[in-house]
């Protein structure tokens, strides 16, 4: 399955939106945190997990999804949220902890919920696998269209929740796709030191579903395999497990000194930055001109600027809002 020109440009634009968004978030996050790094300080306190480098996974998968489909994401959710169509203004406001945020500041960056596009996050590793099964079961039982995608990291493939959910999806033949972002690192522990198999796609065999491994952080290859898997799920063919090689260009979270990386690894990863690579490819393939892509990038920047301005201009909710929304 190959993307059309429009799909390619949609993917590129969403990758750029995600990158520009995180660049600004990164800058603002560091405000008030220098010279001494204190996570509690600044306009954006708390942990911050950036997804730069991993954008191809989000766009290659979400290019096949619409608002009705369900996605469960992780503690590193920005790229997936953007590609799934989450309201960027309200997401930015949530990251700032403002009243206009998606949950009015209760959740922050690890708990992005946008029911309008059926997007949910879970801050605990592999926690989204079960809910994705449940949403898929719900669609099946209600006879309603839609599939569920559970995004997770390669570290999550060693969690019990992952294995239980895959078995459940397999035995009930649910329309769910498990997408593992293999960025090679579970915080500081390398995949080879934590995982008994080199590639997690082989684990699909244990749960009666097809497994695919996609090397190279290649948005078109991701689009291809994810598209086939999602079509299969829509057609009643059941679940699929996909592991995708991707690159975490940042630390696990901001403030991570990344001393565990081998020397030179980061530099090599930046040489493979998927966004300039895709830009060159679009031009080389005749899908877009420099001017076209400049226009897309300007549009992406404008979206991001608007979202950040919205977040900054928004007020904090009254402190007593902390005591509300515990129950429906």
């Amino acid at each position: 399955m190959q993307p059309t020109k429009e799909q390619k440009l949609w993917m590129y634009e969403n990758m750029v939106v995600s990158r520009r968004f995180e660049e600004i978030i990164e800058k603002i996050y560091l405000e008030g945190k220098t010279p001494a790094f204190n996570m509690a300080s600044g306009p954006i306190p708390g942990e911050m997990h950036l997804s730069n480098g991993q954008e191809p996974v989000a766009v290659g998968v979400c290019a096949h999804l619409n608002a009705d489909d369900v996605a469960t994401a992780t503690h590193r959710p920005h790229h997936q949220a953007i590609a799934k169509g989450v309201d960027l203004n309200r997401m930015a406001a949530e990251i700032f902890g403002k009243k206009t945020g998606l949950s009015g500041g209760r959740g922050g960056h690890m708990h992005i919920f946008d029911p309008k596009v059926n997007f949910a996050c879970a801050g605990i590793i592999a926690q989204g696998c079960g809910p994705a099964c449940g949403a898929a079961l719900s669609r099946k039982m209600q006879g309603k269209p839609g599939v569920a995608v559970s995004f997770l990291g390669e570290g999550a493939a060693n969690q019990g929740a992952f294995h239980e959910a895959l078995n459940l999806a397999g035995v009930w033949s649910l329309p769910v796709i498990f997408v593992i972002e293999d960025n090679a690192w579970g915080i500081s522990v390398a995949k080879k030191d934590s995982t008994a198999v080199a590639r997690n796609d082989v684990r699909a065999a244990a749960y009666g579903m097809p497994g695919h491994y996609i090397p190279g952080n290649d948005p078109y290859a991701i689009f291809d395999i994810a598209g086939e898997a999602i079509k299969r799920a829509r057609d009643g063919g059941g679940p699929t497990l996909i592991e995708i090689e991707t690159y975490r260009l940042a630390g696990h979270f901001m403030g991570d000194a990344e001393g565990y990386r081998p020397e030179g690894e980061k530099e090599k990863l930046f040489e493979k930055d998927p966004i300039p690579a895709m830009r060159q490819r679009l031009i080389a393939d005749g899908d877009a001109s420099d001017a076209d892509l400049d226009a897309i990038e300007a549009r992406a920047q404008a979206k991001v600027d608007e979202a950040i301005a919205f977040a900054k201009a928004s007020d904090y909710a009254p402190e007593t809002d902390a005591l509300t929304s515990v129950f429906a």
Partner: protein
Amino acid sequence: MSNEGTNERRLTIARAMAESIQQEMQNDARVFVMGEDIGELGGVFGNTRGLLEEFGKERIRDTPISETAFISAAVGAAQDGMRPVVELMFVDFFGVCFDAIYNLMAKDIYFSGGGVKVPMVLMTSTGGGYSDAGQHSQCLYASFAHLPGMKVVSPSNAYDAKGLMTAAMRDDSPVVYMYHKRLQGMGWLGTEAGATVDTPEESYTVEIGKAKVVREGSDVTLVGLAMGVHNALKAADKLAEQGVSAEVVDLVSLVPLDRETVINSVAKTGRLIVVDEDYHSYGVSGEIIATVTEHDISKLKAAPKRVTYPDVPIPFARPMEQFCLPNPDKIVAAYKAM
């Protein structure tokens, strides 16, 4: 079970729960049941008996032994418009799936700022007294009630069991429905007769968050839930023989907790004994006593007492387990020591 020529319709809690679910499933296509052995077997404790025959395997789903997967799947289904009822066979098994319960089920409404609803019921069996040892006999009421975001109920009789289950299935927030095995009406568990009561056939609800004064009295308030209510009622009979008038409060619900009913009762009697089969420390008994003393300590004529399970794992051997469990004589002794 016998009607003995009356118009009474006496049901066990197991049958009352099954009837509630059956009626709600007839009325609401979004309701379905998932859990281990809830289909063909009808639930280890009988509370889904007969449902598979009527509703089939799609809506009465036996699951793999994967509590994390099917409880978190229920959360996903609930957020997607279904109203699942899931069973955690023994509450003791919470250890293998608590992330799905307290980090996911209990927090998604809050973390979405009320944007999503989580209309699901997690039903689970509690309690010991039949020598099943400490991984199959706990109550753990406080472990659930302590954590915000879950409603927690535990019926003491079939009438409440049916109405609470119906209310739980209609609630847009997650409800943990804890049923005590000794009250289920399963002969092999040694049933407490007082739990099998007249239960209307038509569907009805019992309000979640409302305690009941199940016996009026003037000298002491005995507060309990589930099995504790029956121990308290038997103790009240014994105390009455000695000229002491005990009032018995059935909490029915731990979250929300009806503090007002407890406070009003103690204001009347001036004495408080809490009966709880859960562990002694950091639990329901401490919370009830704190509720009363924080409100108006001057109402108390004596220091409150508690009859609870000691802070030890639950032993297998009958003499040891029975030594640890609350019983009516311990409640009477507690009163005498006041």
